[in-house]
């Protein structure tokens, strides 16, 4: 009984070693394959797809894919180079953030203090909606009171529409 867990652990050890090797070989293959796939230089569209998500680190509010300055052309070349090296879009963006700060991202990163930018507008909107809802309810209660005391509003129909339109037009005169 005692050795049983040990046996199991030995089996899992072998299995995990095996999977490790398999994985390792697959990984080598995969990386070789991506390296082969990346051999031709990445196209302008590949570069722009990433540059579009980044902001020029020196100009104000200019996306990197459309920024005409020489510096930005060099940064786009850097993206091309990194793509050719097989870096992913996230890795490239991460590289830019580490070197030039979070301002190169088109939105504040969702961490710490920056959550405020995402959270405050919906809260303000919901608060406004709630205030409006409460106001409507209290108005309706008042209207119901008025209705129960006998001031019944007539059901509007097409004739009433015509009458109202005429009245509004008269008022404008």
């Amino acid at each position, binding site marked *: 009984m005692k050795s049983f867990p040990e046996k199991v652990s030995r089996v899992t050890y072998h299995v995990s070693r095996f999977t490790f090797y398999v994985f390792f070989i697959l990984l080598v293959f995969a990386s070789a394959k991506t390296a082969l796939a990346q051999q031709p230089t990445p*196209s302008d*569209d590949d570069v*722009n797809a990433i540059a579009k998500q980044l902001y020029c680190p020196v100009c104000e509010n200019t996306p990197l894919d459309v920024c005409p300055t020489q510096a930005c052309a060099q940064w786009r070349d850097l993206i091309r180079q990194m793509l050719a090296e097989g870096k992913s879009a996230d890795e490239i963006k991460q590289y830019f953030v580490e070197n030039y700060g979070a301002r190169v991202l088109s939105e504040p990163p969702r961490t710490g*203090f920056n959550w405020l930018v995402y959270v405050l507008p919906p809260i303000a*909107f919901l608060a406004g909606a709630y205030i409006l809802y409460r106001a*409507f309810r209290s108005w309706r209660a008042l*209207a119901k009171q008025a209705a129960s005391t006998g001031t019944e509003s007539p059901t509007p129909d097409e004739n009433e529409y015509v009458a109202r339109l005429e009245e509004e*037009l008269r008022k404008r005169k």
Partner: protein
Amino acid sequence: MIADFGYGVIVATFLLALFCVGAGVYGAQTKSYRWADSARRAMLLTFPMVTIASLALIYLLTTGQYEYQYVYTVTSNSMPLYLKITAWWGGQAGSLLFWSWLMSAFASAVALRKWDRDREFLPWVIVVSAVTLAFFLSLNIFFENPFARWWQTASGEMAAMFRPSGAIPLNPSDGQGLNPLLRHPGMIIHPPMLYLGFVSFVIPFAFAIAALITGRTDDRWIRITRRWTLVAWLFLSLGLVLGARWAYDVLGWGGYWGWDPVEISAFMPWLTGTAFLHSVMSQEKRGMLKQWNMLLIILTYDLVIFGTFLTRSGVLSSVHAFAQSAIGPMFFAFIGATLIISVSLLIYRWSDLRAEVEMKSMLSREALSLLNNLLFMGVLVVCFWGVIFPLISELATNQKVTVGPPFYERATSPLFGALMLLMGIAPLSAWGHSSIKTLGRALWKPAIAAVVVMIAIFVAGIHNAVALLGFGLVALVIFVTLYEFWRGAQARHRTTGEGFFTALGRLAARNRRRYGGYIIHISMVLMAIGILGIEVFQTETQGTISEGQALSLAGYTIKFDSVAQFDVPGGHNVTRAVLSIYRGDQYLGALHPRRDYFYESGQPMTIPGVRSTLADDLYVILADWQPISAIGATFKVYHNPLVNWLWIGSIIFILGMLVAVWPDKVTSDG
């Protein structure tokens, strides 16, 4: 000499505006007609005075007196005369003077009104206008002097009005010239349009404050300023559209709106102004939402000041830029002070502004107009917060962040969608009372038609959910609005026996504000078609090709024929490519994307080649071309479906506006 004179006139006008404030307050408080009239005359005098100061500046600009800093920064010898004149508003100092000029013109127009009916209002209106005028003139006097001159001192060059000790006057022979990007017809009329809109909103605000101070809180102030508000809104809207068109034609990023802080700062007063236009109708028709209307016009005024400040200072780029500019704290102090005073007055009169009737139904027109206001305020909060968050973040965490288009698009698009839905429902609901039954009866036909359109679009192969929903809403608004025209004309046709089209014409003529408003609704959703087209369906590609080769995008083939580089008169160099556009084998025409290089400012300008149809725009930019290399040229191609509807919508918008503001034959007010 002329500059000293101009500066002196500004100082004198500033003092006159201060006198105007004092005399107006004293006259209104003591009910002294003489003092109030004196304030009025002083206000009338400010207009010719600011005009003279402006003419002095224009004289310096057109005669190339580059020893003056402002002239040096915005003009140069090579600029044509009309650009030298319009350089009046080409830089910060001049545009502040332009602001003051418009303010004095509008305030004078108000001062020329007959005083007998609104004797208690008008002194206060003049006081509020004069305070605003004095503030803007003080900026010219103390911080942004358009008449400051260049001096050479021991520590370097500097600009000052009066000779610093030991300084020698500098006399440059040429100026830097206006930024070439701004030398575009759209950019020449865009700022005055925007400013016309900004400044006209001061007038309804001034009347609102007058109403609060005098306690005359009925809807008189709204009736007097109705046309002012509409005109302000027209110019602000035109300013925004022209700015968008300029960005599309000149900036060369394939779009018209980049959610830049400067754009947003002009958009924010538009949001509150639009909400105000809708919600004042509840006050006129039902005597409701008075407090809210006051708050909206106060907000609009302060957002106008905030917008003027942001568009011309660039302080939002960092906290340091803000701290260094002397003008920033002044603006914030003024905005803070006017906001506090206005809101205090509002609170003081709060109970007088209570609604005359209660809201009866959640589907009545006034209830839906409140919902409309909630949505506009939602967009405003997103915009305001997005614009100031980078500053707050830098202050709190010392980290710079960018709040860019993805943030605004995600946050505002559901709100804009809901606004479109309201635009489809609200015109059918009645003032005072509407139930699901009455609303449903009016709505079902247009709603079914809109669903049919959605199905047709789906069958045609567009399966994008946002696009389907958006186009469905566009169809709903158009059908509902046309149905409203038809229903009204039909009703008149039946009751009065007029022919259908006579009835339609008379109907629109008798309630121009309503039917003009409906035309504007249609124009808005036509613009929405363009916005949806570019937001959802824009595609792009970029490639470096040599002559004879081609790029393809969205079924188009763009063949590179040739490129040439040459100098043109006016001091710039042009690189111009010739492209042939094909769809399949069919030749559609040639495009000529250009890059202009301005020698004096060392700045390039990208002018796209655009093939524009109702269905789509093909927008080609010459991104790069090196004369010595044989690699070829780099082109960036955008396919912008439906974007033309944005501009078509703008033209219909102007038509609707003209219908709404065209003066009545016999005016009861305004």
